């Protein structure tokens, strides 16, 4: 039988083929039904252990992974490692080896530095799932975005997707660009020149355009994806003030007029209302922000299932 997804680790979308991505999305589609049941639990991963190892703060993603694990009957342990406790002196690899010695089946990791999940995957016997590494990738976010788009547009192939905002610091943008272009969408990115590197178009071989103005990116788009201004990652003054950012780059109803009539709006959260997105857009029927969160649980159930299912038997 054709296996939908052969890799045990999910490190990034870049490493996946189009067939892998479709396999994960199809599996996630079938997990949605469980989240609508009265008893939202299946015994599939009974006896398996999932460690959520978060070196960065997160409410949404961590909760989503925790619920996904629990709804599959896995035991989930959450470890929030503030930078101060790492400063006890243990290296990342030692932390990983210690956790691995407790024989978990899957480690879900978020870290402020790019490449940490890849490092972890090299030393750990458990499957490693990237829950966001620096400005590199956030694969499950891109997968849940794709699921939301597919639900509303029925396909991804041929869609025009605008990604607006702080592209430079955004792992969400990178994962989405890989995923959407692999599935045949055209992606246009825009934002302040300081936050949208001109050579960004080389990230993928085809399907990505860097637009000089937000209006150009939004023009005729089927999907408008707004990114959060990541002040915590900005080590310099990339734009003068938040008010100015909002005036020039914020998504308002006026700007959204340029998109297709049935365009949908996505935001990975947490959103800064009145800065990158106006409240009336965020609360409009075109905004699918809560759908994204809802599908996130199904996507993570699929990822955990594919990462750990059958792994105890060998290979």
């Amino acid at each position, binding site marked *: 039988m054709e296996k939908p997804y052969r890799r045990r680790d999910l490190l990034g979308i870049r490493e996946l083929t189009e067939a892998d991505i479709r396999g994960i999305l199809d599996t996630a589609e079938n997990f949605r039904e*469980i989240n609508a049941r009265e008893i939202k*639990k299946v*015994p*599939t991963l009974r006896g398996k252990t999932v460690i959520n190892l978060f070196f960065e703060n997160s409410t949404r993603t961590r909760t989503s992974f925790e619920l996904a694990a629990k709804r599959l009957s896995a035991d989930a342990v959450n470890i929030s490692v503030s930078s101060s406790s790492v400063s006890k002196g243990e290296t990342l690899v030692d932390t990983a080896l210690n956790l691995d010695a407790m024989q978990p089946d899957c480690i879900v990791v978020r870290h402020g530095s790019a490449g940490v999940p890849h490092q972890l995957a090299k030393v750990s016997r458990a499957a490693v799932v990237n829950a966001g590494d620096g400005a590199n990738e956030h694969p499950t976010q891109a997968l849940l975005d794709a699921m939301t788009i597919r639900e509303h547009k029925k396909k991804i192939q041929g869609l025009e997707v605008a990604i607006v905002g702080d592209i430079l610091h955004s792992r969400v943008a990178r994962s989405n660009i890989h995923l959407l272009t692999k599935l045949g969408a055209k992606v246009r990115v825009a934002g302040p020149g300081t936050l949208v590197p001109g050579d960004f178009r080389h990230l993928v071989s085809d399907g990505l355009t860097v637009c000089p103005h937000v209006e150009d990116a939004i023009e005729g788009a089927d999907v408008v994806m707004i990114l959060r201004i990541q002040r915590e990652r900005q080590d310099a003054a990339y734009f003068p003030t938040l008010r100015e950012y909002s005036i020039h780059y914020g998504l308002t109803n006026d700007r959204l007029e340029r998109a297709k009539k049935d365009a949908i709006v996505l935001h990975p959260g947490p959103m800064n209302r009145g800065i990158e997105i106006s409240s009336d857009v965020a609360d409009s029927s075109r905004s699918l922000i809560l759908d994204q969160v809802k599908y996130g649980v199904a996507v993570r159930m699929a990822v955990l299932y594919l990462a750990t299912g*059958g792994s105890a*038997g060998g*290979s």
Partner: protein
Amino acid sequence: MPDEKSLTEKSRIMDSARMKRAISRLASEIVEENQGAKDVYIVGIRRRGVPLAERIVDKIAEIEGEMPLFGIIDITLYRDDLSTVGASPIVNRTELDTDIDDKIIVLVDDVLYTGRTIRAALDQLMDFGRPRKVQLAVLIDRGREHRELPIQADFVGKTVPTKQSEIIRVMLKEYDEVEGVGIFEKPSE
């Protein structure tokens, strides 16, 4: 399951006409046992139980003039061999749109062999509610000696004593080129 091409068919135990008659009989027995189609909820087990369940539903509608309830169960997430099958099997959707509480559930599958699939289906049903009764209908029963759990069928199309080295294949037009049931020999290893 081994590659289909490597299997050699030893005998054809049902052709499409006999299969049709067996399904008709299953449908009659189900309504006779339950005194009609009221509260009867026919649930096909993926994959090949689903088209069989659909045919039983149509037949019952024909006999009783009343459509029984219909649903689909995918047991993948309830399997007891996930750690040994090697890789994650494909998950499909369970569709039990009508509440199962107080209904007479008739599980439908193509072949009853070890009973483990039925165990998984029963476990899943219990997560959905509390049916009044659960019955089992299968097209082919391979015989009690293969059973690994105390599970028997209430309605059987045909009992076929088989060896462990044999495979029974129920071929349906939804998935196969021909309709019928054949006994195949597993290739020797």
